[in-house]
């Protein structure tokens, strides 16, 4: 891989890491907000989740820095080093988390992202030194005072009857190893000096705390054996050594004494990732745990010995009870085991794709593949025709099998483009936080259906409109805390993003519990702006739709947020361009629900096949209202425009044969396809109706890019090319121009 290519990977990796970092920071912030009223029962879970989040944020910063070093990007290394240092202190609980710290860290994340984006543009130096300096200074204000002498450690005594080791099992969020020692009574007589182990341990790292446990001591003094050892230690230990190395310190006492070593969280994480990186070779549970380093072979042996005497206990259970390894690690190992077994019995590639990591492929390559598969479909179709002509049954049969396979390949490759909407949704956490702060509102964003998949192109194009709708909901929908209080609503506003699949399309909902739409006010505004006539009787839905009209805004005060150059009309147009639609449901005082219906993919559409002369055309199915036969008596022509009577409604229509300059005679019977775009309807007159089909869109070549009324082409099963009509521009043509001026 060339350095440039590696750099591109680095940029992409950083974007992902920073995005994740932002999400984690926001999650921490939410945790901070709710920690005041959290109940005690979930406190432990919270603590674990917290440590995990901090660890993850640390790792993100660490990776950004580490890779920057490889590329010699000193400015990134310098900056992220400061961030990393602070996060490390946070991880080791030397400093406490505050909302101002999170705010600073968020800004640091932004700065990092800017540096990365500059890097993507080829700028390999600090783009905003002032900000970098300010942030570094800010970070330093959070740092704890100078650290104490590293070598000293406090020895305290504990008469606690509960063994602290048990309490802390699996909850070692402190970033250091926890070693729990219980010497057996004979230790001294065997020449074992308890202090010797502690001293030796210091060779491998730093002992941060020692608690001496003496609860083995007999209560009755007569039973006290002066030569017996009643000691135990609870040791907090910071070290980069492996568990095996640490365990080896106790090599000579572990057979008889109790030695439990609990890894720090970071270590736990590395076990988990090692487990997930193991190949699909089937292994036993113990083997997986030993291989990832979570369990030492000695521990496994002891546990297996116990299991053979108590066969009713599962190995994982024994290991967790003995404190050899954390429950999470055992779970991960069991999952891995299941996966390996599945991998053996099922198709290997399917198992690999399920959980076996991801493969980073450039989008262009996938597009190229899909394009080639499109070609394959065409040549497959023509092969099918030739094979049928040949009257060779064997050939026909194998060609038809081949074509079935091609279709499967096509569907599979389409699935390659599908991505989860979660990443797009999560980006709004930050937006909601920032915008709500700016407006002095309290808003909680909840996300559901994050795993709903849709085409990557749609995801990319939906970002902006969604952003606008979310901002709008915050700006105009959700009220200020004072207003909410006056209305008796909870101070905290709720914004909800939801996604789900519904019969071949994806539905995205943006729901707020704000003020709702005021139909009367919208109507008044529309009249004032001259959008509608005051005599119009409109139902609620139609009034709501007025907010999508160009130049419409009901906000009395123009805030920083509105007036960003995008109006609701643009939002709606964006969505319509994607082949989607937007619905509004609102109850005044209760809230608003915007529902976006989008196609799952832009590469395939549900079409309706029609014919003029010998030429097939495809009309996107979702723009079709109905099909009727053209009654020649009902059609009139005036000023070059044609209209027909559709159940006493005036319907402008256009004949495709006239539009596209087809010179043959009209057939006796013609059909009208009634299409709609927005609130308008029009008729498209064709010769024949063939029916629905699902079709792959192939974009038109550059030569035809100026062609109006045609959106693309599609290859039919018989190899014929069908043009796909572009309904929005066609409607415009029907409305504005005289047909014979259109096509030259």
């Amino acid at each position, binding site marked *: 891989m060339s350095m440039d290519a590696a750099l591109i990977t680095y940029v992409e990796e950083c974007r992902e890491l920073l995005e994740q970092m932002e999400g984690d920071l926001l999650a921490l912030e939410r945790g901070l907000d709710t920690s005041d009223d959290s109940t005690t029962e979930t406190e432990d879970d919270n603590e674990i989740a917290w440590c995990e989040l901090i660890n993850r944020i640390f790792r993100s910063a660490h990776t950004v820095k580490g890779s920057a070093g490889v590329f010699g990007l000193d400015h990134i290394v310098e900056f992220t080093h400061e961030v990393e240092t602070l996060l490390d202190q946070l991880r080791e609980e030397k400093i406490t988390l505050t909302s101002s710290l999170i705010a600073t860290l968020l800004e640091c994340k932004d700065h990092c992202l800017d540096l990365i984006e500059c890097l993507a543009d080829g700028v390999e130096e600090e783009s905003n030194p002032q900000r970098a300096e300010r942030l570094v200074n800010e970070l330093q204000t959070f740092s704890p005072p100078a650290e104490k002498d590293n070598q000293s450690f406090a020895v305290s005594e504990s008469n606690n009857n509960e063994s602290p080791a048990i309490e802390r099992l699996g909850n070692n969020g402190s970033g250091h190893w926890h070693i729990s020692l219980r010497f057996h009574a004979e230790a001294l007589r065997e*020449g074992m000096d308890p202090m010797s182990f502690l001293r030796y341990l210091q060779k491998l790292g730093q002992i941060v705390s020692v608690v001496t446990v003496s609860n083995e001591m007999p209560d009755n003094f007569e039973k006290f054996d002066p030569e017996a050892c009643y000691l135990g230690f609870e040791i907090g230990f910071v070290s980069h050594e492996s568990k095996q190395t640490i365990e080896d310190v106790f*090599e*000579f006492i572990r057979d008889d004494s109790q030695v439990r070593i609990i890894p720090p969280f970071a270590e736990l994480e590395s076990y988990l990732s090692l487990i997930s990186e193991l190949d699909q070779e089937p292994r036993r549970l113990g083997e997986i745990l030993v291989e990832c380093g979570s369990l030492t072979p000695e521990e496994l042996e002891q546990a297996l010995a116990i299991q053979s005497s108590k066969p009713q206990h599962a190995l994982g259970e024994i290991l967790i009870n003995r404190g050899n390894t954390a429950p999470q690690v055992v779970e991960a190992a069991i999952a891995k085991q299941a996966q390996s077994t599945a991998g053996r019995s099922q198709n290997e590639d399917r198992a690999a794709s399920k959980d076996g990591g991801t493969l980073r492929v450039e989008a262009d390559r996938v597009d190229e593949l899909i394009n080639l598969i499109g070609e394959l479909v065409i040549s497959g179709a023509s092969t099918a025709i030739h094979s049928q002509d040949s009257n060779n049954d064997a050939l026909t049969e194998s060609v038809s099998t081949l074509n079935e396979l091609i279709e499967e390949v096509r569907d599979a490759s389409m699935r390659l483009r599908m991505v989860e909407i979660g990443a797009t949704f999560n980006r709004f956490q930050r937006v909601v936080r920032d915008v709500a702060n700016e407006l002095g509102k309290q808003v909680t964003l909840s996300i559901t259906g994050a795993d709903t998949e849709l085409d990557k192109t749609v995801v990319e194009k939906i970002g902006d409109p969604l952003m606008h709708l979310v901002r709008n909901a915050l700006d105009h929908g959700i009220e200020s805390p004072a207003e909410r209080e006056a209305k008796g609503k909870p101070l905290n506003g709720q914004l909800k993003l939801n996604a789900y699949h519904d019969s071949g399309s994806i539905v995205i909902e943006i729901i707020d519990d704000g003020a709702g739409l005021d139909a009367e006010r919208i109507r008044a505004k529309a009249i004032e702006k001259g959008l509608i006539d005051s005599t119009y009787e409109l139902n609620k839905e139609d009034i709501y739709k007025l907010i999508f009209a160009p130049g419409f805004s009901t906000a009395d005060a123009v805030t920083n947020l509105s007036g960003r150059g995008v109006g609701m009309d643009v939002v709606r147009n964006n969505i319509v361009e994607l082949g989607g639609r937007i619905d509004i449901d609102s109850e005044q005082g209760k809230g608003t629900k915007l529902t976006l219906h989008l196609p799952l993919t832009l590469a395939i559409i549900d079409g309706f096949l029609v014919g003029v002369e010998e030429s097939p055309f495809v009309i996107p199915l979702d723009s079709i209202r109905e099909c009727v036969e053209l009654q020649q008596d009902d059609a009139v022509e005036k000023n070059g425009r044609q209209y027909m009577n559709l159940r006493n409604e005036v319907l402008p229509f256009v004949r495709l044969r006239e539009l596209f300059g087809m010179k043959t005679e009209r057939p006796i019977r013609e059909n009208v396809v009634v299409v709609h775009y927005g609130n308008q309807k029009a008729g498209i007159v064709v010769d024949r109706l063939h029916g629905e089909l699902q079709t792959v869109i192939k974009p038109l070549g550059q030569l035809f890019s100026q062609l109006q009324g045609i959106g693309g082409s599609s290859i039919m099963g018989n190899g014929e090319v069908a043009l796909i009509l572009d309904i929005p521009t066609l409607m415009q043509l029907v409305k504005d121009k005289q047909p014979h001026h259109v096509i030259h």
Partner: protein
Amino acid sequence: MTKRILIVDDSASIRQVVSTTLQGAGYETIEACDGMDGLKKLDGSKINLIISDVNMPKMDGISFVKELKANPAYKFTPVIMLTTESQEDKKAQGKAAGAKAWVVKPFQPQQMLTAVEKLVM
């Protein structure tokens, strides 16, 4: 205070390697060529650790450890047994006799030092 270590082995070369390694790490060493000789060297003076081979003429390591543990002056002195991989049964016997630590032969001088440090650091 310098720690004193008694090395009991019939192989002069092994005694020498172990002795040199330990002296290099700041320990004082005493050498004995078998169990009998070892017991003779235990004159009541302070010994911090004993390293003993298993197979030796006159008195083997197991008997030596048993005798040692019977001596009140040395019953708390840790013992490292030198064993070979094939001597699992001897290792068990040694442990039963009271030698809980061991180093498997052939060993690197550093391994020996590590084992010693774990016990008398």
